[in-house]
């Protein structure tokens, strides 16, 4: 007991030193910036300093011991395990995109806040303590031991199914994280996107390759501290500026009524109405062109080609010729392509012609039916995110690393606590920035746009983060003239609040930490599933511990490079599927995990059938309803969006698990005593 306490004190001291040094680093950079250090150097410094820091922690905690490599020796105190899990959890999407999502979608966006926190109740109550009592290494381990069966009674079919689900879920997720690393690096330091990816990859590898779970845990604690500081400082500043109260989580309540009043004012403002009328006209023009296909496509094609000839004939400037050539290249190649492009543009224009939705009103809609449909989608999404959270292997894996079952329960509490430090701030940030944009940016003069607008408008040329065009030519910014990408919210907060550029660098470092910490955990989950569950448990059960760790490290390397390669291809389809990973994880793993603890009658055949059918239903629904995957919106059941496919997959998996278990033989004494063991007090 006293050694544990001494260990805790030592760790706490180390991380306090670390936080102090980090503060000193920030202060030093602030002074340097005052002395005229260029922005790009600050970006470089932040990026390299943090990556070197993670690498140093990785090198210091290198190990080849199996227990250290897979579960950090099972002696991570609850508080630190909670911090590490929180860093594992807070991904690039949470850090960068969530606040933007709330800005854009208002009440609907809160489904993510609820889903991503409520899932921890299920982790704490239904799964984590029992995994820790079981005390092995991976999630497939647990399922295979509980549902022993198959040839030799080792539960290999269930194990392989669980490995498959782990890999599919974690791989889509890790590609998105590495993609985010490339994006952050290129936006803040101006390095090439793929260079950014491989820099991030190097830092991930030094850490997880050398020390596995042990190195990842201690790096993640440091990363959490950076994430928290980077998220809270600018938000607190903004809150102090607007409300005079540096606690944004409390203060934004005062801004909400003011925002609602401003929204109502903007909804009926004559200038806003004029801009929206222009967008409606544009949408109507696209509708006419679509109706006149294919003649309109021919006419349009002749027109752009004619323009190109005209420019060439009058020997226009090279810039003019290039610009016209680009327009010719961008013109749809066939009439059907034109139909698709134009209907997309029609929809985009129609969307911008809509008045702003009130931020805090739940499920606004023209009639009760549409409003109900939004509510049902909200509920379905919350359900899928919660059950998915409770089945994500890289999070559950963390319940093995604490010294006892009791500490695992406490660790989930700390995890949620540390996640909430950031998550409770996100709705506040969205409201504060929205208020700032609605009152300060809207109505300002086009010749005096704030600096942050022009800076962030020019950062990403292909998908501008913010674009403002004077649609009705009155020289004044209207709300309907602003097209904003949610990501800009967190990235630009320091500048909106008028903070020095150092804080922007800090935010970039925080976003990088969020993406890297999640990628670390995911890569370890994948390579452990491959090395421990496939290689050691199925292929070569006689492998020596040394060999197991070596194989695991090699596989980690391979998986990391494949993921980085996939991310460098900018795969739009994988990125759009990240939200779907929650539905898949929940449908495939949640029923088997929970029934394995709470229902003694569940057996091998039932679990296998349940996992296959849950996964199958989920995939089937996604393929049939997601336009990206070739489905159509018309085939939705109860108007539920494809991202919430788990709302059908989980009950299907659960029902099949129960039915097949009851139809087949009850589990043997071996399984029953296993359940008694994991349920018993320590």
């Amino acid at each position, binding site marked *: 007991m006293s050694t544990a306490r001494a260990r805790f004190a030592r760790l706490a001291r180390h991380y306090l030193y670390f936080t102090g040094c980090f503060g000193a680093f920030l202060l030093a950079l602030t002074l340097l910036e005052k002395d005229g250090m260029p922005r790009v150097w600050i970006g470089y410094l932040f990026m390299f300093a943090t990556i070197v820091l993670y690498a140093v922690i990785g090198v210091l905690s290198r190990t080849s011991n199996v227990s250290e490599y897979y579960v950090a020796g*099972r*002696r991570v105190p609850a508080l630190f395990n909670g911090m590490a899990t929180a860093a594992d959890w807070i991904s690039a999407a949470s850090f960068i995109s969530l606040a933007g999502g709330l800005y854009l979608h208002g*009440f609907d966006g*809160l*489904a993510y*806040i*609820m889903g991503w*926190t*409520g899932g*921890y*109740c*299920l982790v*704490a*109550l*239904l799964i984590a*303590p029992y995994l820790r*009592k*079981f*005390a*092995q290494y991976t999630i497939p381990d647990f399922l295979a*031991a509980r549902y022993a069966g198959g040839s030799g009674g080792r539960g290999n079919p269930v194990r392989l199914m669980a490995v498959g689900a782990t890999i599919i879920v974690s791989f889509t997720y890790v590609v998105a994280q590495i993609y985010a690393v490339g994006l952050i690096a290129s936006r803040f330091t101006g390095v090439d996107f793929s260079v950014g990816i491989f820099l991030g990859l190097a830092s991930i590898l030094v850490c997880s390759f050398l020390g596995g779970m042990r190195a990842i845990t201690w790096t993640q604690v440091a990363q959490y501290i950076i994430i928290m500081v980077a998220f809270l400082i600018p938000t607190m500043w903004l809150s102090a500026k607007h409300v005079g109260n540096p606690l944004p989580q409390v203060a934004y*309540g*005062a801004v*909400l*009524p003011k925002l609602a009043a401003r929204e109502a004012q903007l909804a009926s403002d004559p200038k806003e109405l004029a801009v929206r009328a222009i967008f409606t006209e544009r949408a109507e023009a696209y509708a006419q062109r679509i109706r006149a296909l294919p003649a309109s496509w021919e006419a349009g094609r002749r027109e752009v080609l004619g323009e190109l000839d005209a420019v060439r004939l009058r020997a226009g400037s090279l810039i003019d010729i290039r610009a016209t050539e680009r327009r010719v290249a961008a013109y749809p190649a066939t009439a059907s392509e034109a139909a698709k492009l134009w209907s997309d543009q029609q929809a985009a224009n129609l969307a911008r012609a809509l008045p702003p939705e009130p931020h*805090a*009103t*739940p*499920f606004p809609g023209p009639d009760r039916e549409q*409003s109900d449909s939004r*509510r049902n989608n*909200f*509920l379905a999404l*919350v*359900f899928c995110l*919660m059950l998915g959270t409770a089945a994500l292997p890289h999070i559950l894996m963390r319940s093995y690393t604490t*010294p*006892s079952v*009791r500490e695992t*329960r406490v660790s*989930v*509490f700390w995890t*949620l*606590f540390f996640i*909430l430090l950031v*998550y*409770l701030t996100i*709705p506040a940030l969205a409201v504060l920035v929205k208020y700032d944009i609605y009152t300060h940016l809207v109505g300002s003069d086009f010749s005096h746009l704030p600096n942050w607008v022009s800076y962030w408008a020019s950062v990403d040329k292909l998908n501008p983060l913010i674009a403002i065009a004077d649609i009705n030519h009155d020289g004044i910014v209207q709300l309907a003239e602003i097209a904003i990408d949610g990501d800009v919210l967190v990235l630009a907060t320091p500048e909106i609040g008028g903070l020095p550029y150092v804080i922007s660098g800090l935010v970039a470092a925080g976003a990088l930490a969020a993406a890297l910490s999640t990628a670390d955990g995911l890569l370890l989950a994948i390579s452990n599933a491959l090395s421990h569950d496939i290689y050691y448990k199925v292929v070569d059960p006689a492998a020596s511990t040394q060999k197991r760790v070596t194989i695991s490290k090699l596989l980690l390397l391979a998986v990391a490079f494949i993921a980085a390669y996939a991310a460098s291809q900018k795969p739009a389809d994988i990125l759009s599927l990240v939200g779907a990973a929650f539905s898949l994880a929940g449908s495939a793993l949640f029923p088997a995990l929970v029934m394995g603890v*709470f229902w*003694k009658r569940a057996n091998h055949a039932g679990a296998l059938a349940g996992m296959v059918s849950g996964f199958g239903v989920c995939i089937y629904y996604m393929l049939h309803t997601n336009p990206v995957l070739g489905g159509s919106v018309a085939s939705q059941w109860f108007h539920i969006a494809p991202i919430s496919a788990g709302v059908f997959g989980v009950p299907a998996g659960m029902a099949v698990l129960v039915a097949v278990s009851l139809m087949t033989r009850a589990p043997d*004494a*071996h399984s029953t*005593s*296993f359940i*008694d*063991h994991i*349920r*018993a*007090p*320590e």
Partner: protein
Amino acid sequence: MTMPTDPRSRVPPVPPAPAPAPAAMVHPVTPPNPGAAADDAGAAAQRQLAQLAARSRHWQRTRRLTFGLLAVWFAASFCSVFFARELAALSLFGWPLSFYLAAQGAALIYLAIVGAYAAGMRRVDRRYGRELQQQFGPATGPEPGMSARGETP
């Protein structure tokens, strides 16, 4: 509270000799009490039954706590959203109630649930852990061959 799936009902009247337990996973059910040799077989069986009963009471308490807290979780997440439009008229310190619940309230309730579970289970475990230990000696502790951290070699 009688549960239809009360595990006690599934305990065989005379438990067989301890099931061939998976190595290093199940605590031996027979008490390694040196005085046991003097007892007759009936007393040993009775002791075993008492231990099973204590374990199943522990599990019953665990389950009651778990499902009670899950009911709170369900109400906080799904009922609050289902009736969000009705709750929007009410306000809490300036926030519309449904917005506050979805943005922060539910998350804080989740934190309370996880905290209450950790504290509650600590009490339950301690109580039944002690009971099992008092009656049956150190049988519920880690068995030989397992390190204190439950590590298998």
